[in-house]
């Protein structure tokens, strides 16, 4: 009996000791929008630098903002930039700035699962706003039908799917809808979590994709790669210039290029960007890094990763359908990385 106790204690001690080697462990949490990208990046980076382990948990942008504010993670991630109030709150609680670092460009696509429709549907801005407001309830509604002549749309109820958790993907989508429809802007607004007029909730991009894939006649907004990886149909969206554009690397890059200059703190919205080739529901996504990191090993690891991410890391984006950061943004970021203390 005594021997067993000693053995257990030794094992416990060993287990604890194993954590005490020179591995740098970083914990981050946040957006599901770029999760496939981050998951690939952190895995690759770990293989390049085996002593650095970055554990990223995709719990939604709201979670990323919340947990980095509370200080329970080393960094956060969000596709909805933090508001001025949130930044002020961070400064008040943690005594330092929170820095935004764009990582990739992505797109929210309207994915759908309609029996008998295999072609790409075209959605006007009014159609999408109406669907999510609950004013357009059937797939063969004139607003949808007139943009899709010749497509056999069923007279079926539209099953609307949105996010149940605090989401940057929601932020991007509602940001777009607020620009597309005054009705939406006044009734619902834009945020990581809103009071949805209709629909089912899915947890994360993963959950929404799951629901859309399994529920006939459904529509849900998800990041492009989720639609691609799961073979879910997604439609074209009408942009500010009136053209119907499908989300892809070119159209997302066009949206980033034609938007106004990138501000110093990198918080910018590129939804409904001008230009004939721009995909209207594009967005940057950001890593949220505290301005001061007291642990030197962690600080160096984060800075090292960020430098890798904006250079070599960008090579991996296109394979996962995310667009690379524009060159001017990269240059600006390089300078901003040195601001981390």
């Amino acid at each position, binding site marked *: 009996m005594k021997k067993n106790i000693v053995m257990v204690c030794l094992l*416990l001690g060993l*287990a*604890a*000791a*194993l*954590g*005490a*080697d020179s*591995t740098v*462990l970083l*914990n981050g*949490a946040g957006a599901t929008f770029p*999760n*496939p990208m981050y*998951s*690939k990046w*952190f*895995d690759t980076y*770990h293989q390049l630098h085996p002593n650095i*382990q970055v*554990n*990223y*948990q995709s*719990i939604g942008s709201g979670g990323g903002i919340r947990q980095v504010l*509370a*200080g*329970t*993670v080393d960094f956060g991630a969000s596709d909805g930039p933090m508001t001025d109030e949130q930044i002020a709150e961070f400064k008040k609680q943690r005594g330092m700035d929170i820095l935004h670092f764009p990582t990739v460009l992505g797109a929210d696509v309207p994915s759908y699962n309609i029996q008998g429709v295999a072609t790409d549907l075209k959605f006007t801005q009014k159609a999408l706003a109406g669907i999510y407001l609950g004013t357009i309830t059937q797939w063969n509604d004139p607003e949808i039908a007139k943009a899709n002549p010749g497509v056999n749309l069923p007279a079926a109820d539209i099953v609307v799917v949105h996010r149940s958790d605090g989401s940057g993907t929601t932020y991007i989508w509602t940001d777009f809808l607020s620009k597309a429809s005054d009705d939406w802007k006044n009734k619902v607004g834009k945020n990581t979590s809103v009071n949805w007029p209709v629909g089912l909730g*899915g*947890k*994360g991009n*993963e*959950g929404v*994709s*799951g629901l*859309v*894939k399994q529920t006939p006649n459904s529509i849900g907004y998800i990041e492009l*790669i*989720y639609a691609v*990886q*799961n073979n*879910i149909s997604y439609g074209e969206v009408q942009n500010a210039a009136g053209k119907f554009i499908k989300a892809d690397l070119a159209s997302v890059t066009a949206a980033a290029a034609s938007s106004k200059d990138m501000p110093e703190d990198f918080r910018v919205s590129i939804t409904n960007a001008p230009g004939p080739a721009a995909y209207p529901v594009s967005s940057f996504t950001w890593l949220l890094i505290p301005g001061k990191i007291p642990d030197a090993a962690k600080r160096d690891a984060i800075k090292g990763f960020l430098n890798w991410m904006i250079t070599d890391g960008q090579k991996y984006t296109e394979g*996962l359908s995310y667009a690379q950061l524009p060159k001017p943004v990269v240059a600006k970021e390089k300078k901003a990385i040195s601001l981390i203390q």
Partner: protein
Amino acid sequence: MSRLHLLWRKSLNILMLTLTGVAALLVVSVLFLILGCLLWNGGKSLNLSFFTQLPKPVGESGGGMANAIVGSLKLLLLAAVLGLPVGLLAGVYLAEFGGKTFSFVIRYTTDILNGVPSVVIGIFAYTLAVLPVKHFSTFAGGVALGVMAIPITVRSTEEFLRAVPGTLREGAMALGASKWRTIATVVLPAAKGGIITGMLLALARVAGETAPLLFTALGNQFWSPGWSQPTASLPTVIYAYALSAYDDWHRQAWAAGLVLLALVLVANVGTRLALSRGGAARGV
């Protein structure tokens, strides 16, 4: 009493009694359906890599749940270390030492704690073990699970201690043993089978808990060294994978579900069989 009325009553009798039998059969068959479903879907996906590999990046197929399995084991170990001694000694107090009012208060409080929904325990553990140290951790997860294991352990310990015949205690005291000595060397060993059963059942119960871990242990793509880092665990991974759209993740969720269920059922069946054979005090 008319013949027809009697016939009616007799038919109703047979009908209702048959229905009750059908009901019992239905409920039992649900259990086998669950088992069958998991064996069928999960069995297909269980292979060596499931147990030995780490998860692959999102969207890539393959990989396994080695870190989740180890994570669950570590959490259970912590729950055992933190929760079981409290449950055991509190049970001893209630059975052997307790005064009337205070015992009533403790029992009532234990009942309250037992009835607290697991998600509320999660909130509690977050404020207790995550916020103060600004860290999601295996330890915080262990705290949540340990707290949940306490009420079950208290109840079963007390029950089995009470079931030990008074004659054993009196015999020991007549031989000059002090009270604590009696408890330690006579009563506890006599109730040992039942108490260990209660502990194992408590652990089996918390092994499947998910909600509290979402706010405490969070999750981890990699191995979680030590006790102060977030960790993956079987239930949280099942939850995340089941909700997704990736077929590969669904496959793995089934397999993980099978492993988790096997663990829980083996603990439940095994301990109860051992208990009934060991001839210790009857039923929990």
